[in-house]
């Protein structure tokens, strides 16, 4: 790792920007530095677009502890048996080799916004002119009584990529005949609004094949959820009698768990379970809080460029941001990253900055070839990212439409992962 001293000075930066030409571009030194924290849907995309489009005019450093990023998107399909875990893993080799991104496999542990540096767990710190944080989520301690991170092996959350999903699938496949699977669903706002319900569908799909008398209980602190009519229709069609969803009106929010005893208490009634997925309440990844750009659980941002309300040189993307109407999804994070990269590049090199446009589509698989989707487009207004237009699959669609929808989701997975990593 190189620890460049920060040679790029404020006055020079302003001059470069107004001249619309990167004048301070002597080899390596003096080039503006962008540090991106988090190599997921938001961070990998932002780093890739910045490096690709600036043709070497910006030093881009990406800080990410993992060498392989396992997508959360499609991890439910892995749980259902439609994907292998390796299908979900992606590495950073191309970002480094093809675009010259300095990929640092480490944790960012602090941000000094006065000195404009990011410090690393492995020691040392990196200077930045612009800092982009896309750390995803962390869980709010104590949000599910009886559960904390030390219980994540007994009762996995499987809400961050990789090994947690593997653990949950193994536990589901190991359930005794006729056993019980429970999910504690999260309160709003949380990452991937249809995620828990797609997961329930995939768990039901796996159990229907291996353990058809098994039962599924969902304790939900909400009254309704994303694509609810579509999921309920699908559950009735494919998994009749298997799934018991308990919403907040029936005490679904009054929950505690005992990971040692493998029990779940819902509105006072205690049930012995054989596998349990606890998805706690969420907040921005901790580094956003340490950088001092959060207000409450999330980091408020300006819609036009994703800069934080707290600091114009610090940007927050994806799940960690509080931006307005977009759901917390990989598609949203990727979309926000491209708007942000265009704005950051413009600010540092004087390149053209185009108006922000955002979009999102979330597909969910209910059963084999039964896909549904919901999507919308968004624009930047003064106060937030605001929804422009949207659509949702309808109940009662033909099986051809549902199959085409599923096939599209596969196309999208190939598209977004190429847009992040290739």
């Amino acid at each position: 790792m190189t620890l460049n001293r920060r040679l790029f000075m404020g006055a020079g930066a302003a001059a470069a920007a107004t001249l619309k030409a990167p004048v301070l571009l002597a080899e390596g030194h003096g080039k503006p530095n962008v540090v991106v924290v988090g190599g997921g849907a938001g961070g990998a995309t932002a780093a890739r677009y910045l490096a690709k489009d600036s043709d070497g005019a910006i030093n881009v450093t990406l800080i990410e502890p993992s060498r392989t990023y396992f997508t959360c998107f499609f991890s439910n399909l892995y749980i259902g048996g439609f994907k292998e875990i390796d299908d979900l893993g992606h590495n950073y080799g191309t970002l480094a080799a093809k675009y010259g991104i300095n990929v640092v496999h480490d944790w960012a542990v602090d941000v000094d916004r006065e000195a404009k540096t990011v410090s690393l767990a492995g020691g040392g710190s990196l200077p930045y002119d612009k800092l982009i944080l896309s750390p995803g989520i962390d869980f709010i301690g104590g949000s599910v009584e009886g559960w904390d991170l030390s219980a994540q092996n007994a009762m996995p959350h499987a809400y961050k990529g990789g090994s947690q999903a593997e653990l949950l699938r193994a536990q589901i496949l190991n359930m005794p005949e006729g056993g019980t699977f429970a999910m504690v669903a999260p309160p709003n706002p949380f990452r991937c609004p249809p995620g828990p319900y797609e997961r329930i569908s995939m768990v039901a799909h796996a159990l229907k094949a291996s353990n058809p008398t098994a039962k599924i209980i969902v304790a939900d602190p909400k009254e309704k959820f994303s694509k609810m009519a579509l999921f309920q229709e699908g559950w009735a069609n494919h998994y009749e009698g298997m799934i018991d969803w308990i919403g907040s009106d029936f005490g679904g929010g009054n929950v505690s768990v005992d990971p040692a005893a493998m029990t779940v208490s819902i509105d006072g009634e205690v049930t012995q379970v054989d596998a349990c997925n606890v998805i706690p309440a969420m907040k921005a990844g901790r580094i956003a809080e340490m950088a001092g750009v959060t207000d409450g659980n999330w980091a408020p941002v300006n819609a036009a460029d994703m800069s934080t309300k707290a600091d114009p040189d610090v940007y927050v993307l994806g799940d960690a941001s509080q931006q307005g109407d977009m759901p917390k999804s990989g598609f949203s994070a990727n979309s926000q990253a491209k708007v942000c990269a265009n704005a950051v590049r413009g600010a540092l090199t004087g390149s053209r900055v185009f108006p922000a446009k955002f979009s999102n589509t979330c597909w969910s698989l209910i059963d084999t070839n039964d896909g549904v989707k919901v999507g919308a487009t968004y624009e930047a207004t003064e106060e937030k990212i605001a929804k422009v237009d949207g659509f949702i699959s309808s109940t009662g669609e033909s099986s051809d439409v549902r199959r085409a929808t599923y096939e599209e989701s596969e196309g999208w997975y190939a598209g977004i992962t190429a847009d992040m990593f290739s």
Partner: protein
Amino acid sequence: MARLPILPAALAAICVAGAAWAEEIGDAEKGADLFSTCIGCHEVGAGARDRIGPHLNGIFGRRAAAHDGYPYSRSMQRAGDDGLTWTFETLDAYIENPRALVSKTRMSFRGLKDPRDRADILAYLRDFSDNPSDVPEAEPTARATDHDLDPAILAIQGDPEYGEYLSSECLTCHLPDGGAEGIPSITRWPVEDFVVAMHAYKRKLRPHPVMQMMAGRLNDEEIAALAAYFRDLD
């Protein structure tokens, strides 16, 4: 009518194909109707031009990716270099499931499952292959569906730099290398076809909720910019 295949490759193909060629391969008249599934992308007949796909005159006996001036995918070029030649069998396999034969082909076509339909289309196409210097004149050229888009819209010169920025939104789903895995390829299309397709979504003439929404908020200049950018994307 004299039937003299001019290419040695075609001769070879006929010998290899053997029995299938001795008989009628299918009903060319039915094939003319069934060609409607191809016509959005391919022209055939006198004066046929390359559109989203290459024109298909003289396809029998030709190597894959051998038509000059058409921007084939790398995958198709590789198949041609490896010796893939269009015979009844290879064409039949390609239109049954394009990606099974040419894994990353830019042809976004789901495939025709019915062997009878495929045989009929191929019988029809063979009429435009037997003697390329004498492509049937009487047949009206099968062309992409007409449109009523204002010529002023088609005349707009797109700004490719703006197109590049706008394209980033499309590349969450569409692959930049022209691959088509559940979502069609949109690279290297003629500008006119691209603009017509986008306006058809925008005006909700083409069904599809995602694309109607995406196209719905693009103005004429933005569509032109995207068409210009994707035309040259390689």
